[in-house]
Structure formats: structure tokens, C-alpha cells
């Protein structure tokens, strides 16, 4: 069964910490995405990548960075975690010219 795997289901970090969220897909997809989802705000795109070492800003990139060193792995980095980054983070992937995304189960991050 093809899938997108996010490294942690739940994560608790302290304010100011550097946080890494990892996402791995096994479908040989070119596109990978990071979204965050908050009650009342829906899903918002943080960053996406359509090739190794390529990255594009989404709607809310401030406070985040990403890394894509290998095709199957896309990492989201919170350089200095803040409480307003407490959220559900969702990773997704798709083929290059395809809107049929496969999402991971999400990482619920709490910053205290």
C-alpha cells in the first residue's frame, strides 16, 4: 500500500527550540507539500517542492524552512519554535502534473 509517512504523530517542544518534521513517501512522487491545519482556518500551504533541492513558498512560509535532499524525503524546519506554531502539520505528495495528492496522517505539534 503506497503511503506518506510522517515521523511523529504527536510532538511537544519548548519555545525557541529548533524542530524538524520529517516526511517520507514511497510512490516516487515529484511533488511534496507541507500544510498546517488549524480550527476555523482550514489547510494552509507552507512550502512545496517539485524536485530535489527545489522549494517554493506557499501562503504562510514565515518562521519555517524546508529541505529536500532526496526525492522521497521532505523536511519541515521550525527554526525557533513559537507558541503560534502549535498546529496539525500535514505532508502530502503527488506526481508532477497531478492534483491527486496523497496525505500523511499528520503530526500534532504543541509548542509550550
Amino acid at each position, binding site marked *: 500500500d503506497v503511503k506518506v509517512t510522517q515521523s511523529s504523530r504527536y510532538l511537544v517542544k519548548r519555545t525557541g527550540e529548533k524542530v524538524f518534521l520529517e516526511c517520507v513517501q514511497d510512490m516516487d512522487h515529484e511533488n511534496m507539500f507541507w500544510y498546517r491545519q488549524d480550527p476555523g482556518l*482550514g489547510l494552509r500551504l507552507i512550502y512545496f517542492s517539485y524536485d530535489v533541492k527545489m522549494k517554493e513558498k506557499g501562503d504562510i512560509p514565515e518562521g519555517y524552512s524546508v529541505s529536500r535532499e532526496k526525492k522521497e524525503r521532505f523536511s519541515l524546519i521550525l527554526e525557533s519554535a513559537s507558541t503560534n506554531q502549535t498546529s496539525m502539520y500535514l505532508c*502530502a505528495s503527488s506526481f508532477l502534473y497531478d*492534483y491527486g495528492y496523497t*496525505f500523511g496522517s499528520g503530526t500534532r505539534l504543541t509548542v509550550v
Partner: protein
Amino acid sequence: LAKTTQPISMDSYEGQEVNITCSHNNIATNDYITWYQQFPSQGPRFIIQGYKTKVTNEVASLFIPADRKSSTLSLPRVSLSDTAVYYCLVGDRDSGAGSYQLTFGKGTKLSVIP
């Protein structure tokens, strides 16, 4: 990307057919219509995609009128397990690489009642 408008919530009894309509008045010639389903505490799941007329798969049907300014997702004989949020999205199929990102709205929360 064309903006979409859909109802915030809907209720339905088990066994009924549910139709969720999405408005996309500014849809462009090359845009495709895509629907996702999201259960609580899970990531969204792709349901169906179409360009015009009717598309059907094992989960749902998608009806798109000739002017393409709206689309209707039809779920036959819903059960309690169909309770979820349903998102309608529009995207340009002929965009270049790096353009296939989707902007999700707030979706339609469907509640199926026993």
C-alpha cells in the same frame, strides 16, 4: 487559482443520497475540479476529479454542467462513516512544473445522522 464557494455544513440521514454543490464562477478553460474528503484526525483523501459532464468512481459521482461554473459531488446512500469534511478545489491542469499546488478552503462538514 479560481476561488470556490461551498456550504459550510450539511446534515443527512443514513441511506440518503447527498449532493454537495460547489460554485467556481471564475473557472478558467484549463482548470480541473478536484474533491477531497477528510475524516477527523486524518489527512485529506482524494475522491474524484473531472473537467466536464459526469465522472463516476467507486466512491462518488461528480456532475459538471456545460458552463462549468459549478460542480456537484454526489454520495449515494451515505452511512455514518461518510461523516467528514469535503473540499472542492480548482486547479489549472496545464500549468508548468511547480504549479500543481492546491489551496484548500474550509470545506463542507457533512454530518450523517442515524
